[in-house]
């Protein structure tokens, strides 16, 4: 019997080149060009890095600073009697305020994944959010509602970490040596380019992710991930994940309007 011989790079390359020989249809380039001309680029006025000219860059920065000041001032006024009374927040990350949803969200069911619920529960009333910049420079917001009272922080990481996610998949894994740290990853048609709501059940064993997305949007089908830190161990094997895709948002209607009932 022959010993199994390891394939070499030239062998694999030669076979792949042979298998992929031949170019695309002659009209593919023209089809792409036509598609480009009928497709608008996605501009994000809040992000400061991409302005084409120095003047535009300064204006963008000024807008960002002004927006940040207004937002900060508003938060001070609104939250002075609430959040600040509870003492200084955890410096690591936003600390969600546990509170029940007034609409009474659906109770989680067994199984690692679930089909979209018929009436997705909005995360109205959520006072905390995690924002992060994806590797592609996209600002993503996750509004967290923690009903367990055990969430002490969160860090949003990079997308694209699940090896082969299925739509509606939610995966869990504890951080190495940290049973109270929980990595949550999910995939949805919205990719990571959307606003998400995240709801943690009272027993901290079910996490429901609410995704909304623009109809005809341009999300890249990546997957998303966030690291949550709890005050006590949350075994990944006991976790149930639900992914609820809210209905597509029509032009002129913001995702917040859909979820903010």
């Amino acid at each position: 019997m022959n010993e199994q011989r390891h394939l070499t790079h030239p062998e694999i390359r030669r076979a792949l080149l042979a298998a992929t020989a031949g170019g695309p249809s002659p009209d593919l380039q023209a089809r792409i060009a036509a598609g480009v001309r009928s497709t608008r680029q996605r501009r994000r006025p809040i992000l400061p890095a991409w302005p084409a000219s120095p003047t535009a860059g300064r204006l963008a920065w000024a807008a960002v600073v002004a927006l940040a000041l207004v937002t900060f001032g508003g938060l001070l006024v609104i939250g002075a009697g609430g959040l600040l009374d509870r003492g200084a927040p955890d410096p690591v990350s936003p600390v969600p305020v546990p509170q029940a949803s007034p609409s009474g969200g659906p109770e989680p069911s067994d199984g690692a994944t679930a089909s979209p619920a018929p009436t997705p529960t909005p995360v109205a009333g959520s006072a905390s959010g995690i924002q992060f910049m994806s590797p592609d420079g996209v600002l993503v917001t996750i509004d967290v509602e923690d009903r367990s009272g055990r969430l002490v922080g969160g860090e949003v990481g990079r997308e694209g970490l699940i090896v082969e996610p299925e739509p509606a998949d939610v995966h869990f894994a504890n951080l190495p040596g940290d049973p109270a740290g929980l990595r949550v990853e999910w995939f949805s048609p919205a990719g990571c380019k959307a606003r998400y709501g995240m709801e943690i059940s009272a027993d901290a064993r079910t996490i429901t992710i609410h995704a909304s997305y623009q109809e005809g949007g341009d999300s890249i089908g990546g997957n998303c991930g966030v690291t949550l830190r709890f005050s006590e161990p949350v075994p990944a094997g006991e976790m149930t994940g639900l992914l609820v895709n809210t209905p597509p948002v029509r032009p002129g209607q913001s995702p917040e309007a859909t979820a903010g009932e």
Partner: protein
Amino acid sequence: MIDDVVTDRALSGLAGEQELVARARAGDPRAFDTLVAMRLRPTFRLARAIVGDPAAAEDVTQEAFLQAWRNLPGLRDPARFDAWFGRILVNAARMHLRSRRRTMTIAIDEVDPEGATLGRSDAGIQGVGDADHLQRAFDRLGPEQRTILALHHLDERPVAEIATMLGVPVGTAKWRLHQARAALERAMESQR
């Protein structure tokens, strides 16, 4: 438009591509046309290696370029266009495979009834038949394994760059590449 493309091709090399990316990012479709022209064949080839079917590879290629065009203003550093676009392409291929898997079932063990008649030379993969043999083994791999093998052996991207594209640590990418090669060798063996 063709003349513009030809003119733009004079912007050869990396700096030229970055210039094109910057212009396309600012909304210049002709600069993007040139990028497409420069990258069409290798993009199609990689897509075909991942998804297999030429028609599907065209769809994936087109989708990847259009996604790139739409999202280009969000690319902060034109120097990262290559890895950024590669990531878009891989994701588009994954999405396609996912949708295909939902609508079609392939009995892997029945894919190659003639495969057993194709021998493999002890001297390595040399003839067309051997290449076919290897390609059939490649087709039996999962999309993630095909993707990482194609990125490394067809696109000849270094592991560190693949890790960036896939959003995994370098060690993980190395391990996945090793596993994919081993799976390919096992698939070859099973056809003998």
